[in-house]
């Protein structure tokens, strides 16, 4: 570990001079955490992973709502006598060091009985003694070591989560039965005749029958239910032929053994269901640590501090906020309702809502909207609307959030199976009528054989395995899809719509351009010294880009709210701020954010602030334009229009000043015209558009922290790979089509045996698993080759 990075968190520590134990730290917070660990003999934390920590945030007062018993009760999983159990979501969990330290919490505080980390879900389940440790203390303890839990309104309403494990039970039962039935049918496979096999075959057959009972009745029930639902709504989905096949297999096999006519197809039956469930299981890849269904509840705080009429502070539940209440919003706290600023300096970060990280300063009497985050000390506000009536929450009352996208979409398997089922039924009927005329004893046999062998096992398998694998590959490349059907939707896209701020522009970065007469060194010095005193967001960013100069102590310094700053040093005078303030009367009303400068009452020039665009954006748009219609839907003014037209292909449509509803309506309109729309956005103002579009992708700088409801989450660092990801989805569809072809070949071979009336159990036993396994192998290998092409 070199001395330039913080020993605790790995951030740059060159400018800080904090050292402790011969180790450098970037800030006192990190040093304190190190001290806590070293005092408690927990420095192994740093052996497991280099610089695993996070800087602890100042949380004073932030968790006061945990004093409210009503809120605490809702969060606890178990609460009896002196033992309490709570599960806390901790976004920072990212490596084995985190697991180690969190599972050794009892070393830091003996009141903790046990703590168990679930890495996949990024949460920790803590059992503690509530007499010596309150939930608030526990949360403070976690925060003090850099593992601040994330408690949101979501935790309050969901209650106890139920884990659905039915698929794994079904899979287990099918696998168990499949294995045993295979063993029991070995004697029949080898067709050995003799006294021994004749004597015991009934026992073997009846055992097979009993093994397959739970498989048909329990494991396969989803297919029957789905087929029934499909038929009732007059849709021939893939589950119809599967259910038909399973039913025919079971009935024919049972009658065969009851009338001692043969051994039946129990091995194929159980095997078929086992493979089908395996495909489902494979496709069920979920990113449990990500949430695709987030709404305002996921990041709103549970509690807030109310200032009572007597002037005392009282933590209350967010839903209990009433119009006219006075609230105290602390540093770094989110404003839960629309309100009016009464006291304090408000510097609000609306990036949750707009995706834009520019900080807005507000004065007393200004209106503040829900969703903003206060950044500079605490403020007092008067509530205008309750939580449900606030502007942000109203966004979620739109109908698009109640619609299930998957239902309105016919997937590739179902569209093929429609024709498939009809064809199979026709073949079965034709073959049966042929045999009825030639040899009526074989007719029933042929009818059932066709239905058995044609059971579209391989077709039903190819899509889940292909999509499951693609899902996994894309996940590794930091593109997280909600489910497999998103891949299919992605392949059908013909229009791509981007939000501007936060999506194609990089957060926390602006480029600043100077126009005007060049400033002399003395003037630049003065400018830098003057900006130093100002806390205005624009001043801060301008200050940061100017070269380092000697800092003068100014003779006079005055800040005019909403206008600018005026300062004097020796005989020099400087004015920084809006155009009229510095003496430029006729400003050509530009839409860009600009800061004007004049010295000694002579106008010098202006600094214009531009958004910084993500790297590779031009290249991405130029590759996308060949196949897709491109649109930029921005909530901002047209200030960046010129800059954008230079950067992006000429065909790109640019629309500015779009309200969240406008974005949604725009997408709806084009969908009615037949467009398949991919929306790429990031802020809550895009939430409606993301939900309305065919595929909504949320761009996120930190996938764990926040993203609005969407179909997929893309890590911002992989933004320029977007085109490749869409291409992969298209190739996946081709793989499925190829594997369909492969399975049709198997079906034709099988049908030959079935139609000619020579389907022996052994043929079915070989052909059915063979076709399934080869399809699985085919899709796995080809998708892996595809994945290797990605960077």
């Amino acid at each position: 570990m070199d001395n330039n990075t913080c020993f605790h968190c790995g951030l740059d520590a060159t400018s800080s001079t904090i050292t402790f134990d011969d180790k450098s730290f970037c800030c006192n917070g990190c040093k304190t955490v190190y001290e806590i660990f070293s005092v408690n003999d927990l420095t192994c934390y740093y052996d497991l992973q280099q610089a695993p920590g996070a800087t602890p945030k100042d949380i004073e007062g932030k968790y006061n709502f945990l004093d409210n018993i009503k809120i605490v009760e809702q969060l606890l999983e178990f609460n009896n006598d002196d033992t309490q159990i709570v599960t806390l979501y901790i976004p920072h969990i990212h490596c084995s060091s985190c697991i180690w330290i969190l599972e050794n919490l009892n070393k830091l505080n003996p009141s903790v009985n046990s703590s168990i980390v679930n890495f996949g879900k990024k949460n920790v389940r803590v059992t503690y003694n509530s007499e010596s440790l309150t939930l608030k203390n526990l949360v403070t303890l976690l925060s003090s070591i850099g593992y601040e839990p994330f408690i949101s309104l979501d935790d309050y309403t969901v209650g106890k989560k139920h884990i659905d494990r039915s698929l794994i039970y079904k899979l287990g039962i099918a696998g168990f039965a499949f294995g045993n039935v295979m063993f029991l049918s070995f004697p029949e496979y080898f067709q050995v005749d003799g006294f021994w096999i004749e004597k015991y075959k009934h026992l073997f057959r009846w055992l097979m029958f009993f093994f397959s009972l739970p498989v048909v009745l329990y494991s396969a029930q989803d297919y029957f239910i789905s087929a029934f639902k499909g038929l009732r709504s007059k849709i021939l989905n893939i589950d119809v032929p599967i259910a038909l096949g399973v039913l025919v297999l079971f009935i024919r096999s049972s009658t065969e053994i009851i009338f001692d006519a043969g051994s039946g197809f129990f091995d194929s039956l159980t095997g078929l269901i086992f493979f089908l469930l395996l495909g489902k299981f494979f496709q069920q890849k979920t990113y449990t640590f990500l949430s695709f269904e987030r709404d305002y509840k996921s990041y709103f705080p549970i509690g807030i501090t109310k200032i009572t009429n007597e002037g005392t502070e009282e933590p209350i539940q967010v839903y209990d906020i009433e119009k006219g209440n006075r609230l105290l919003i602390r540093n770094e706290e989110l404003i839960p309702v629309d309100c009016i600023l009464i006291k304090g300096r408000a510097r609000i970060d609306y990036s949750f809502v707009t995706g834009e990280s520019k900080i807005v300063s507000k004065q007393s009497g200004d209106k503040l909207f829900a969703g903003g985050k206060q950044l500079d000390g605490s403020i007092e506000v008067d509530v205008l609307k309750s939580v449900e009536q606030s502007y942000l929450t109203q966004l979620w009352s739109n109908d698009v959030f109640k619609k299930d996208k998957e239902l309105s979409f016919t997937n590739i398997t179902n569209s093929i199976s429609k024709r498939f089922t009809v064809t199979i039924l026709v073949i079965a009927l034709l073959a049966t009528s042929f045999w009825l005329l030639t040899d009526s004893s074989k007719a029933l046999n042929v009818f059932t054989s066709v239905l058995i062998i044609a059971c579209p096992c391989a077709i039903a398998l190819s899509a889940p395995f292909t999509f499951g694998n693609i899902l996994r590959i894309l996940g590794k490349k930091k593109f997280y899809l909600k489910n497999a059907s998103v891949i299919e939707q992605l392949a059908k896209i013909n229009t791509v719509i981007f939000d501007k701020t936060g999506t194609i522009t990089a957060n926390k970065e602006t480029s600043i351009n100077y126009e005007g007469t060049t400033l002399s060194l003395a003037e630049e010095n003065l400018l830098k010294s003057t900006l130093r005193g100002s806390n205005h967001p624009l001043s801060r960013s301008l200050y940061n880009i100017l070269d380092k100069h000697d800092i003068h102590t100014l003779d006079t310094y005055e800040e005019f709210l909403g206008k600018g700053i005026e300062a004097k040093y020796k005989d020099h005078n400087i004015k920084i701020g809006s155009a009229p303030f510095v003496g430029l009367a006729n400003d050509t009303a530009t839409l860009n954010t600009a800061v004007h400068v004049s010295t000694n009452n002579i106008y010098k020039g202006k600094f214009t602030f531009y958004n910084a665009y993500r790297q590779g954006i031009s290249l991405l748009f130029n590759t996308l334009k060949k196949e897709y219609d491109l649109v930029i839907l921005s909530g901002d003014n047209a200030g960046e229009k010129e800059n954008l037209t230079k950067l992006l292909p000429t065909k790109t449509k640019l629309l500015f000043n779009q309200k969240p509803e406008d974005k949604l309506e725009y997408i709806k309109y084009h969908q009615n015209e037949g467009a398949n729309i991919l929306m790429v956005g990031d802020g809550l103002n895009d939430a409606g558009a993301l939900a309305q579009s065919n595929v909504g992708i949320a761009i996120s700088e930190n996938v764990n922290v926040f993203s609005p409801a969407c179909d997929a989450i893309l890590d911002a660092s992989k933004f320029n790979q977007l085109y490749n990801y869409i291409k992969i989805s298209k190739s996946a569809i081709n793989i499925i089509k190829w594997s369909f072809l492969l399975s049709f070949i198997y079906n034709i071979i099988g049908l030959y045996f079935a139609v000619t009336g020579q389907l022996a159990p052994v043929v079915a036993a070989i052909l059915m698993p063979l076709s399934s396994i080869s399809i699985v192998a085919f899709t796995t290998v080809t998708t892996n080759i595809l994945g290797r092409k990605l960077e």
Partner: protein
Amino acid sequence: MSVIYILLAISIIVAVVFFIAFIMAVKKGQYDDSYTPSVRMLFEDELIKENSEKTILTKKD
């Protein structure tokens, strides 16, 4: 009564025992988190080292 009945009975009983064990494991949530236990298992060494250090510390006090 043939030996095959005994053999079959035993093999099926063994299979069923394993099957029940599987169901119990799922029910207890063994398949809910497939990553953390694999990491947790490697921590034993650090814990021992840490315990021994702690005893030294208490002796010092």
